[in-house]
């Protein structure tokens, strides 16, 4: 996975912001370092916006943080990853939620406005490919088979076209609407190009519709975030995915260690450097990062693995060091 690369990417802006913050704290940010413990004095507004996938996580973090710091008002919006960066790079938000790393054109937009930021990996997300409970003939699909089904222009409409061992059963497809990050991610991972997908399926922005569609159809096939599968295990069966190294079932462990591939991904937050100069934003980001495992489990996300955790802690230490000096 690209976890290590995306974290390395974070280093450059980190170093830059460290320099910026050094300069900033030199001229009178005396209380900037007091963010960790005594939270009662903190006050202000923190604007979070971006991916609707990450929003439940940021919302849980905001809720827990506000319970301890009643003076801080955290708001979370769901403009989508792209929409979030658009607002973020216009300087309108403090933290941007993202279900993918920031794109080059978004970086350029931020640079143009002089917006510097940091990147933290805060949780993992897995996509589950699901069939109906009534489906007793398929347990595992390879990425090639999934591509055969979902690639643009695909004419596959029966399970026996996917694999001759499968019975003659009509294939009914359900999937994410084209505006969702889930759609971008699935098409990128399976078809190799973001946004490339066959179009003759039942799309829905509401994953609950997909749950109903697939569970009510013996030949149904759909995909969505892992948490939806976990909520609906009584109605659906999640397929194992063979990404080249054998069939792997989606669960917390396989998503965490990256063996469930290619349908597992890290989730990010991007705090703005100038916002981190404010004590309340810094305290919130530190809280978010330090209580990461707790927040992830409360929002029903897959927590970070040990390696990601270490990286995250290191980034946090760097951030703290930048503020203490």
């Amino acid at each position, binding site marked *: 996975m690209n976890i290590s690369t995306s974290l390395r990417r974070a280093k450059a802006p980190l170093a830059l912001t460290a320099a910026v913050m050094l300069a900033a704290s030199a001229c009178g940010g005396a209380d900037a370092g007091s963010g960790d413990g005594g939270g009662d004095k903190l006050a202000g507004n923190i604007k979070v916006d971006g991916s*609707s996938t990450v929003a439940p996580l940021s*919302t849980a973090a905001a*809720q827990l943080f506000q319970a301890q710091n009643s003076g801080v008002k955290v*708001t979370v*919006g769901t403009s989508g990853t792209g929409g979030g960066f658009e607002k973020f790079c216009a300087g*309108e938000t403090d933290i941007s939620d993202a279900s993918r790393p920031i794109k080059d054109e978004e970086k350029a937009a931020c640079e143009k406005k002089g917006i510097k930021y940091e990147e933290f990996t805060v949780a993992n997300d897995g996509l589950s490919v699901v069939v109906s409970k009534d489906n007793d003939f398929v347990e595992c699909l390879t990425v090639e088979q999934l591509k055969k089904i979902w690639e643009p222009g695909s004419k596959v409409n029966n399970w026996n076209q996917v694999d001759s061992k499968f019975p003659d059963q009509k294939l009914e497809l359900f999937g994410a609407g084209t505006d969702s990050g889930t759609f971008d991610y699935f098409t990128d991972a399976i078809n190799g190009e973001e946004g490339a997908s066959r179009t003759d399926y039942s799309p829905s922005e509401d994953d*609950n519709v997909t749950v109903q569609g697939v569970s009510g159809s013996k030949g149904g096939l759909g995909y969505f975030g892992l948490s939806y599968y976990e909520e609906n295990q009584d109605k659906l069966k999640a397929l194992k995915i063979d990404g080249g190294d054998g069939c792997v079932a989606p669960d917390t462990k396989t998503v965490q260690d990256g063996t469930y591939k290619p349908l597992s991904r890290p989730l990010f937050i991007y705090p703005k450097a100038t916002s981190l100069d404010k004590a309340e934003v810094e305290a919130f980001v530190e809280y978010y990062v330090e209580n990461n495992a707790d927040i992830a489990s*409360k929002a029903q996300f897959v927590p970070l693995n040990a390696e990601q955790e270490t990286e995250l802690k290191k980034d946090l230490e760097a951030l703290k060091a930048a503020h203490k000096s």
Partner: protein
Amino acid sequence: MSNVMDRDVSVADEPGAPRLKGKGTPLRERFFQLSLWTSLAVGVVFLASLLVYVVVEAWPRLDSRIWTNFPDIIDPSNAGAQSAIMGTLWIIAFTAVYCLPTGILAAIYLEEYADPNRWWNRVIEINIQNLAAVPSIVYGILGLGIISRGLGFGQTVMSASLTLSLLVLPTVIIASREAIRAVPQSIRQASLALGATQWQTIWRQVLPAAVPGMATGSILALSRAIGEAAPLLLLGGLTFITFNPTGVESPFTALPIQIFGWISQSRAEFTALASAAIVVLLVILLAMNSVAIWLRNRYSRKW
């Protein structure tokens, strides 16, 4: 009126009276009536089933928590929609403050002062009618570009109210014009003949007579604004906010946005919560429409 006349004709079907109807059974008429009833039934049945469905879905969560509590992502049983309800009320109140005076004054100008032979007045008129048909998302883009960013109001109650004002302004203008036009010309002429100025005529005769119609139309227009989610989402309406607006500068959420946010959650409790919020939205809408009907019945005059 025509309904009553039809009935009179059919009642007058006694010996000696002139036969106004054609011979034979009025099959076509029967068929026509039947199709009218069917159309009506389709509408009513759909509406009723929708209401029943929503209330049944919402039933487990339809209690005081919905308006006493704030959103809660961790514990759905503790979640409520107070910030969304208050946001909706704030937004709609300021929308009324911005769009009613503007809309009514524009309607007075167009009906009482504007010369319809001048090309610019005709252009204004056509524009207003076209604006009423513009999709709401377009107003959202306009609001984001001009009001939120251009004028620098940001993601606030102010931006939301101004955008929704623009959205319903054409409807308010058209409804107010209809109400002003319904005041008989003879009233104006009598007033002018007694020596009143044009302004006195409008202020003391035309406006009081037109108020019920204007109020009804305006409230229905505001009811439309209350259900809008698309422009507010574009403007940066939030899905998680645990405090009520304290002024026009506050960040906001509104019921349609909150409903949208909850429906896309994976846990079933949030779906019930969304239904409960829909019921609250419907209650607010019905209350506003009832006021409109009451105003019309209470103050409308027959000439």
